[in-house]
C-alpha cells in the first residue's frame, strides 16, 4: 500500500505526512487495543431521511413525497434508509446504534461554525483553536491519531501526536457541488451546452443507482488498514462532503448513504481482526428542517443523527431522546429539537471505549464540560 499521497504542497507547507507509519512504543499496546474512527459528514446529514420514523403522521405531513420508500424497519418506531443495507444488517447483529436528535451545542445555521464547534469540542464555534481528537491523543499515552485527509482538520489540530495521510485524488464529483454548479454554467452561453453534456455523459445528477462505492469507502478502507496494523494508531478521522441537500435530496442521499454504507462494509471487511475492538462514530454538524422545502430538499436545521457502528458497540437499539415532530415539539417551529449534546456521545465513547480518565475528559479533552454527562452503555 502506498502511504504517501500528498499532492502539491512543498515540504515547507505540508502537515506531517506518513511515508511509513512511525509505529507506537511497546508501552502503547495492551489496554489501548480499542480503536475509534470518527467519520464527519460535512454539510448536515438529514437524520430524518436516513432514519425515518415509522407510522408518524407528523412526519408524513412534513415530508410528503420526500419520505424514502422501502425503508428497512429497525424497531416499532424507526427504519433505516434503503441504501443503508449493510448498516441494517449490523443493527440485527447488535452492532449499530443510531442516536437520534443529537447536535453540537451550537444553534445558529452556519456550516462552518457548527463544524468548528463539533471539532473543537467546546460550547461554541470560537471556543478553542485545537480539536478534541487531538487533545484526546495527547491524553492517551502513546495514543497517536491519524487524519485521513489531505490537510489537517480542526478536530486534529493541536499539541497531541497526530499525523495525516491523504487519500488519492477524488475522481467522483460531489453531487451537491454539481447541483450548485448547474445553474451557474447554464448562465454561461459559451459553456452551458458542454457542461450539460458532461453531466449527462458522466451520469451524475440524481443517479441513485450509481454502482461506484465512492471516495468515502476508499478512505475507510485505508482507515481499516491503518487501524488494523499491530502498531497502528488508535484514533482516526475521516471526513466526507456532499451532504448539504437543499435540492433533489432523495437522489443525492440515495447515493451518499450508499457510499456511507459501502464505507462501513469496507471497514468491517478490511479490519476484521479489530472489528470487535472498534467503535465508529458517524456524525454531522447539524440536522435539517423538518419540512421539505420548495426544491425537494431541506434547509439547515438542528437535531441530527449519529450512527455508532462496530463490534465494540452495544447496538441493536435506538439511542437518544426522541422529541417528536409535532408542531409544538419542533425547535423554532421548524427543526427537530436537539436533546443530546454530541459531546455527551463523544465523552461516553472516550470514557468506556478508550478509558480516558474522567478528569482528562472534563478539563482537557472537552474543557468545561462537567455539566455534560457522558452517555453510558455505548460500548462494552
Amino acid at each position: 500500500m502506498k502511504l504517501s499521497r500528498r499532492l502539491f504542497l512543498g515540504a515547507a507547507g505540508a502537515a506531517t505526512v506518513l511515508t511509513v507509519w512511525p509505529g507506537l512504543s511497546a508501552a502503547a499496546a495492551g489496554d489501548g487495543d480499542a480503536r475509534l474512527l470518527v467519520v464527519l459528514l460535512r454539510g448536515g446529514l438529514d437524520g430524518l431521511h436516513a432514519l425515518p420514523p415509522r407510522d408518524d403522521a407528523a412526519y408524513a405531513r412534513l415530508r410528503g413525497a420526500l419520505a424514502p420508500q422501502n425503508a428497512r424497519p429497525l424497531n416499532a418506531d424507526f427504519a433505516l434508509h434503503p441504501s443503508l443495507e449493510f448498516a441494517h444488517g449490523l443493527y440485527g447483529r447488535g452492532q449499530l446504534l443510531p442516536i437520534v436528535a443529537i447536535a453540537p451545542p451550537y444553534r445558529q445555521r452556519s456550516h462552518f461554525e457548527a463544524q468548528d464547534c463539533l471539532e473543537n469540542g467546546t460550547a461554541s464555534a470560537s471556543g478553542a483553536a485545537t480539536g478534541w481528537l487531538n487533545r484526546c491523543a495527547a491524553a492517551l499515552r502513546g495514543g497517536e491519531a491519524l487524519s485521513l485527509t489531505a490537510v489537517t482538520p480542526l478536530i486534529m489540530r493541536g499539541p497531541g501526536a497526530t499525523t495525516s495521510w491523504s487519500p488519492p485524488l477524488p475522481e467522483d464529483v460531489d453531487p451537491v457541488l454539481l447541483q450548485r454548479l448547474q445553474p451557474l454554467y447554464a448562465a454561461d452561453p459559451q459553456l452551458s451546452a458542454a457542461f450539460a453534456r458532461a453531466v449527462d455523459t458522466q451520469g451524475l445528477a440524481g443517479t441513485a443507482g450509481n454502482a461506484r462505492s465512492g471516495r468515502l469507502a476508499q478512505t475507510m478502507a485505508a482507515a481499516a488498514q491503518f487501524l488494523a496494523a499491530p502498531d497502528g494508531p488508535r484514533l482516526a478521522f475521516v471526513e466526507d462532503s456532499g451532504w448539504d441537500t437543499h435540492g433533489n435530496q432523495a437522489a443525492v442521499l440515495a447515493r451518499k448513504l450508499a457510499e456511507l454504507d459501502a464505507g462501513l462494509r469496507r471497514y468491517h471487511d478490511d479490519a476484521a481482526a479489530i472489528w470487535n475492538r472498534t467503535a465508529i462514530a458517524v456524525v454531522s454538524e447539524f440536522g435539517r428542517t423538518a419540512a421539505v422545502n420548495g426544491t425537494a430538499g431541506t434547509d439547515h436545521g438542528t437535531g441530527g443523527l449519529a450512527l455508532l457502528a462496530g463490534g465494540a458497540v452495544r447496538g441493536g437499539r435506538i439511542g437518544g431522546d426522541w422529541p417528536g415532530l409535532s408542531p409544538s415539539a419542533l425547535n423554532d417551529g421548524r427543526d427537530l429539537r436537539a436533546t443530546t449534546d454530541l459531546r455527551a456521545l463523544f465523552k461516553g465513547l472516550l470514557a468506556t471505549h478508550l478509558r480516558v480518565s474522567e478528569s482528562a475528559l472534563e478539563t482537557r479533552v472537552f474543557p468545561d464540560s462537567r455539566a455534560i454527562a457522558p452517555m453510558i452503555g455505548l460500548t462494552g
Partner: protein
Amino acid sequence: MIPRETVSAVNRFGLGAAPGQLAAVGSDPRGWLKAQLRGDAAASRYADLPSSLDYLRREAGYYRERQAARRDGDGKDAVDSFRQRFGDDQWREQGRRYRVAAANADGFAERLVRFWSNHFAISVDKRAASLYAAPMEREAIRPHLYGRYADLLTAVESHPGMLRYLDNVRSVGADSRYARRARQRMARADRQRPRREVGLNENLAREILELHTLGVDGGYSQADVTELARAITGWGVPLPRELADGGADSAFAFRAAAHESGVRNVVGRRYAQGGLEQGRAILADLAVHPATARHLSYKLARHFVADTPPPALVARLAAAWQRSGGDLATVYAALIDSPEAWGADARKFKTPDDFVLSALRAGGIVPGERPRALVGLLARMGQPPFTPRSPAGYADEAAEWNGADALWKRVQAAQSLSESAPEARIEPLAVAQAVFADRLDADTLSALRRAESPRSGLTMLYASPAFQWRS
C-alpha cells in the same frame, strides 16, 4: 473600489490574482503592467540550476559510461537508464518552474514567458530534447522577453533544445567538408566506420518560417525553406569528446565542417557570406519582416485579448512591431495602451495550465520541489508541461479546451486543488474577493456562501464558470 481594468490586468494579462494583489496594483493597472517590462525579476530564482552545458556534459558522461559497460559486457543493468539518471533533474526543473509561476508577483512577465515558450514549443517526448525544454525557457526566452525579437529568435534557434527537437544537429550541407569526407569514405567502402546517411534536414528551417516567424501564409516558398536550411547547417551542439575534454564553453557549437557555404537567397533577399553570421542575418531579417509582425501580433492579441482579436488591435501591434524593429517591449506597451485590450467583452478561456496556476495562486498553494501530482493533473487535463503534440504548441482557443469531458475534469481538478490549499483557515468569499474584487456575479457568490465547508467553498470557486475565464 478596485477598477475592472485592474482585475483584468492581474487575471487576464497575468496568471491570476494572489491574495492582496489586486489591492497592491490599485488604480493604475497599465502602470503595473508596464513596470514589468523592465527586466525579469524572477531570474535569480533559477540561478542555482544546472545550465544546458552542464546537462550536455553529464549526458555525454552517461553515454560514455554506458558504452564502456556494453564493451565490458556488463549489459544494460550496469548503468542506470537515461530516465533514472536524469529524471530527478527534470522533476526539479518542472518544480522550479511552477514554484516561480505560482509565487511571482509579476504575473504579466510569467505569462509572457509561457506565451513564448509555447510559441517556440519543444516536447520532452523527444529523448534528445528532453533535458533541455525547461532550460531553453530560462536560458533563451526569459533573458530576451523585453528585447528585440531577433535576439529572442536567435537565442531559441541556437539552443540545444530547439536544435535537437527539430533535428538541426543532424543537418549537413551537401557540399560541406563533412559531407564530402563521408562520400569519400563510402566510395572507399570503409567498413571501419558505420555508414550513415548525411545530408540536409529541413525540419527546423520550415518551422522557423511557418511557426516562428512569417506564419504559414507568410509568403515563403519551398525554395526558401531549403535555402534557410542550408544557411543554418552546422548550427549544433558540442560533440561528446569536446565536452569530455572540457573544451566546450557553450551549449551551442557552430560546426563549420557541416556548414554549406555559399550565397543563399531567402524570402527575396540575398545573403552573400556563408558561415554562422549568414544564418543570424537571415533570422534578424525574418524577425522584422512585415509578415512576422502580423503573425506574432495576431498571436499576442489572441493570447491576451480574445480568440478572435479585433483587427484594429492586431494592426496597431503590427505597426508598433515594424516601427520599432521588433522591439518586444514596444509591442507590449502598444497592447497595454490599446482600448480594445480593455473592452468589456475581452476574455479568454483558461487553458489547463492557466487554470491550475491561477488556482494555485488564489489558494496560496506552493507546488512541491518535484511536483509529480501537479504534472499528473495537467496531463489528465490534456496539457502536460513541455509535451505538446507538435512544434505548433498547445492551442490558444477556447474550443480546444472547453469540451464536455474537459469541463468535467476541471470540476475534478477543482476538488484536488482545493484539498491542496494550505490548512490555515480558507475563506472562499475572501479568496473570491482577492481574485475578482467585486466583479463576481451574485449567483456564484451566493453559491459560495452556501458551501458546506470552507474547503468545498474553495472547490466551488475553482469549479465555477467564472473562474474558467481570464476576463
